[in-house]
């Protein structure tokens, strides 16, 4: 564990930053999340042949 001795002040400081991110969501946070989603969605997908998509499973 990085910090073995947490105290209440640490938790309150952290909470203030979480409040800022969740309740007021600054534009840089939105951009960061957009980038993450974009990078995750960029995983190479397979070919998009309509022929395969309309194949019936019997």
């Amino acid at each position, binding site marked *: *564990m*990085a*910090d*073995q*001795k*947490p*105290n*209440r002040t*640490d*938790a*309150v400081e*952290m*909470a203030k*930053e*979480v*409040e800022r*991110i*969740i*309740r007021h*969501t600054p534009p840089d*946070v*939105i951009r*960061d*999340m*957009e980038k*993450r*989603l974009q*990078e*995750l*969605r960029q*995983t*190479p*997908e*397979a*070919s*998009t042949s309509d022929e*395969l*998509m*309309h*194949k*019936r*499973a*019997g």
Partner: protein
Amino acid sequence: MFERFQVVRAADVFADENLQPYPENVADRLREVLSSLDPPARTAVIESDYTDVDYSASYYDQRGRSFTPDRRVTKRIHFFAAEFSDEDLIEASQHTISTMQDSYLGFAVLRPETPVTLGRTVIACPSTIRRHPVRFPTRSTTKVDLAGIPLEVESCPYMSQDAKIMVCATAALWMSSSNLVDKIPGIPFRTTAEITALAMSLDRPFGPAVVQRGLSIVEMEQAFIRMGFDPRRHEFPSADRIVEICHLFSDSGIPPVLGITFGPVGHAVTVVGYTLGAPPDPVPAFRDVASAHQYVPYLVVHDDQRGMYLLAELEDDPVDGDRRTAVLTLHTPNGPERARCTAILVPFPRRVMLDALEVTAQAGYWIEFGKRFGVIEDRKVVSRKLLVRSNSYKQKLLENRRSPSKPDGYPKELVDFARALPMPRYVWLIEVSYVKDWDPTNPALPPVIAEFVLDSTLTEDRRPDFLMAHFPGRLLGNVVKESGVELVPETVSDDGDHLPFPDIPRP
């Protein structure tokens, strides 16, 4: 009166050609699984004239309407690891009842067709397949009555198609949905006859149409919707995405269905479990966060034409240029067979809005946040994600509270904090561990150093959010109240690693 029950050696059932279901692959694999269980099947009880719920539904919709009708009843064969006789079954002493209950391995229904096919089959999950330890978080408990003796088995239900009223896609949908009846409120048990009708929008008895045409992925999706799910469809996924989605939902107790093609022939299989092994070295990581699915070398699938509990490997195969297709290699009793994967279909519970990919993005954001605050070490971590009933999450926390006899249990402050926090019916749980703590030679999951509970009904995917965050030594909860949402911070004095969320079947 007991003539319809016949106690025989399991080996006699395996040797009797009249009791071997078609196709041969399915019979071979059933025999292989029953012989490889630890302990293996030694005794079988053949129950003749058994009225099976699934077979009779299709009988009354189609077979029973023929001018020359088929037989209405099936044979059900029960398997046991212990040895006992006809007399023991009739006598049913307390000793025999306990022996039968303790050694029950499940049953297989044989449809009275020519050739015989395998109907509803519930066989205990093997602990290893080809020497690989296997995990089956999708398993469920089936209760059985054998001449007044109550029996139970934990299994992933299986069946093969009858090629009359149902096809492989119907069997795959049934193998997924029948496992979810006791896990997702509002999902009724559906027979395969009903599933075919839901997929094809039929409100009449069946013609031969379904056998000649099969079901498209869209029709399969429609069947799930009409059963009460909000299914998610992933088209042409990469090999990595397939393993990620299948691992994640297996861990959530939900068996995904894969649409695949063997050459020109469309097919469908159901994912019921996976194996854990050594990840590639170095572990590939997205922004220093590896995913638990990278430790999964094999998925375990039910294939209605090739048998139950089969190992499946995935790899990407370049088609041309940047295009590629995921190739699935199924290890069948007759050797490996390769197919291309065209789609994943996941039967989501209703009102789960937040998608798996969005959960991954949220997990990455909060892990980096923890590193920035110095509460998570700046080293490679691995995250495991699962969708879980919030009441089940709270119950498991309480059951596994830290104590002298359970030193790796959940810290008391975390348990109390989570129990008191209002949550929706389903939450996403993200567990974070250090890569260094994951021992690839040990199939157990690594200890958890931090976790996040996300609201599964969130619709905003660009705003980081959580209901509860547990960083080492710290707890943060977003308490949803009439007056709004209030953030509550807490410290955890007795913190430290704890065990991962137990992968038991969820109620």
